[in-house]
């Protein structure tokens, strides 16, 4: 099948949807050349550097029936818009008793690895998960990107598309034409029986590499990619842990009150899953520090395949220890 990069898959999904629905328009502090070329400056708007205003404007345009896309670009730029996200976009449908819907897509790249330091290397999706009223996803492949973006654009709620900056140039098979991937459905990226690794985005690929490595030693790793963060496919995660009895969570973000903590909680608060757990859960995350610039420091902060391998060994030995 034809291959596209993660970034190309996103653009294709957006272009196909914009062709389908004239109510969709796009705002961002620089206009994306391919979209601008095809759809013109009315539907693809280069704006002042005012993410707060754009985020609010998307709400006011969505209420009357448009379907705005606001590209925050790097997630760090959306913090100036946090009031509009948390106090307005997330609450307006509920607060107004559901009288109209607000179909909005927000795009934000996340992650580090480019030596762009603390302000430009962030993975704060957990902060948004904590806010009721927002849907969000974080794809790990070009295929998932296209299918999830189309679902997001057709959803009648504010949805945040978190996109891994490490994966932008990564290629993968992407069908031509229309397909969607439902929200709230995890994808088993690799089947296994000894340990479950719940991973996001770039770490799905690191986990796959770790699994290959460990397979040589006869360790069978199952890799669950939730894909959507809200709604989260808790059942799929619990089923996998019930099967393997062991849980490792791999996330490029810091651990504290993060996605990784939520996964640990949904596994250990469920009686059936807890009963199957053979040992402690393990979080493989970034250090809980701002992201430094110098490559040596940056590498020291982020999790990778080696730390995943070490984490898997730890939960397996821990389990043995318990068994012994």
């Amino acid at each position, binding site marked *: 099948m034809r291959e596209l990069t993660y970034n190309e898959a996103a653009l294709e999904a957006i272009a196909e949807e914009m062709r389908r629905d004239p109510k969709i328009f796009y705002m961002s502090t620089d206009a994306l050349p391919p979209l601008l070329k095809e759809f013109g400056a009315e539907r693809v708007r280069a704006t*002042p550097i005012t993410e707060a*205003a754009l985020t609010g404007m998307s709400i006011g345009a969505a209420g009357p029936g448009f379907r705005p896309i606001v590209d925050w670009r790097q997630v760090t730029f959306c913090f100036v818009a946090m*009031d509009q996200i948390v106090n307005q976009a997330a609450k307006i449908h509920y607060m107004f008793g559901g009288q109209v819907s607000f179909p909005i897509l927000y795009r934000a790249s996340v992650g580090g690895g480019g030596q762009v330091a603390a302000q430009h290397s962030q993975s704060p999706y957990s902060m948004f998960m904590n806010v009721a009223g927002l849907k969000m996803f974080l794809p790990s492949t070009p295929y998932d990107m296209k299918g999830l973006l189309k679902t997001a654009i057709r959803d*009648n709620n504010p949805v945040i598309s978190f996109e891994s900056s490490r994966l932008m140039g990564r290629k993968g098979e992407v069908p031509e034409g229309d397909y969607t991937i439902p929200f709230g459905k995890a994808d088993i990226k690799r089947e296994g029986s000894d340990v479950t690794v719940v991973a996001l985005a770039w770490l799905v690929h690191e986990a796959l590499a770790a699994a290959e490595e460990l397979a040589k030693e006869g360790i069978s790793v199952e890799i669950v990619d939730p894909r959507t963060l809200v709604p989260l496919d808790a059942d799929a995660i619990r089923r996998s842990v019930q099967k393997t009895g062991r849980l490792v969570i791999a996330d490029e973000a810091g651990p504290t009150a993060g996605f990784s903590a939520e996964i640990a909680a949904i596994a250990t608060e469920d009686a059936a899953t807890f009963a199957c757990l053979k040992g402690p859960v393990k979080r493989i995350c970034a250090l809980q520090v701002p992201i430094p610039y110098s490559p040596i420091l940056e590498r020291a902060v982020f999790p990778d395949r080696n730390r995943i391998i070490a984490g898997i060994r730890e939960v397996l030995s821990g389990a043995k220890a318990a068994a012994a």
Partner: protein
Amino acid sequence: SLSTQTLATNLPPDQQRAMLRRMLTIRRFEERASDDYVAGKIYGVVHCYIGEEAVATGVCSALGPGDRIISTHRGHGHCIAKGADLNRMMAELYGRQTGYCKGKGGSMHIADFGIGMLGANGIVAGGIAIVTGAGLAAQMEGKGGVAVSFFGDGASNAGPFHECLNIAATWKLPMLYVCENNMWAANTAAAQTHALGDVAMRAAGYGIPGVVVDGNDVVAVHQAASHAVDRARSGGGPTLIECKTYRWRAHTERRGQPDPRNQSEIDAWVRKDPIALLEHQLRQQGELDDAALKAMESDILGILEAAVAFAEASPFPTPEQASDDVFAA
């Protein structure tokens, strides 16, 4: 004032009486809401618009049903002026299923998208960007619609005001930015927080008109708004209108809160009562007499009684409904 007198005579008496009725309705609605709040039938927090009725009434009387507005935490006046249903408003304050927000919003969050009222908003300046998006929607719809942002003097110092004024001016959005300068932001005087006395001066930085109006003179507000609406509909872009007015009551209806404003300042503004002013003008034109006023008053009170009755007869939401409406289908 004589000038307004002449302005007033340019407006058909029926329209003037309709404005008087709107302003009286706002005032009586809030007097009732305040009483019922103190009586514990209305919850949370209630901000009254009393004394400022001419602003919402004058502006909204210059709008059509297809035009859209956004409000603030002090929202009853804007809702009523845009034509909101008093039953559903009162039911919302009473926290009932039949309220505009099914009891989920309360006083600070009444909205009626059906009439182009995009909602009260509990965040100062929080609505300015939202309604600017409605202005963009109106421009893209191409049906000549306009959008109006109501906000306070306090909000005028916040970033979104600046960001949106620039965007609206640059894109020539069909917008009115209506600053309700009541000289106070909660317990802080505007004089303490504004470099200049006139918020309208900010317009110059974006090359758009900035107009100062007597916000207690509904006819003057109406005229200023009408000009701005014409300008917006004809592609001329946004106008900033600053309405000088005053809040008669404390920042909120919660009793026993401090109010640092001195009585003489309050009294002076009460003497400039916007309702009394229009009433006086109508009488001078021979278009209003005691009987007509009495009839209007009792009619309004009857409608409000009915609204309260509707609210009290309406069921509270069920606990299960707390989980509804988080997401749209």
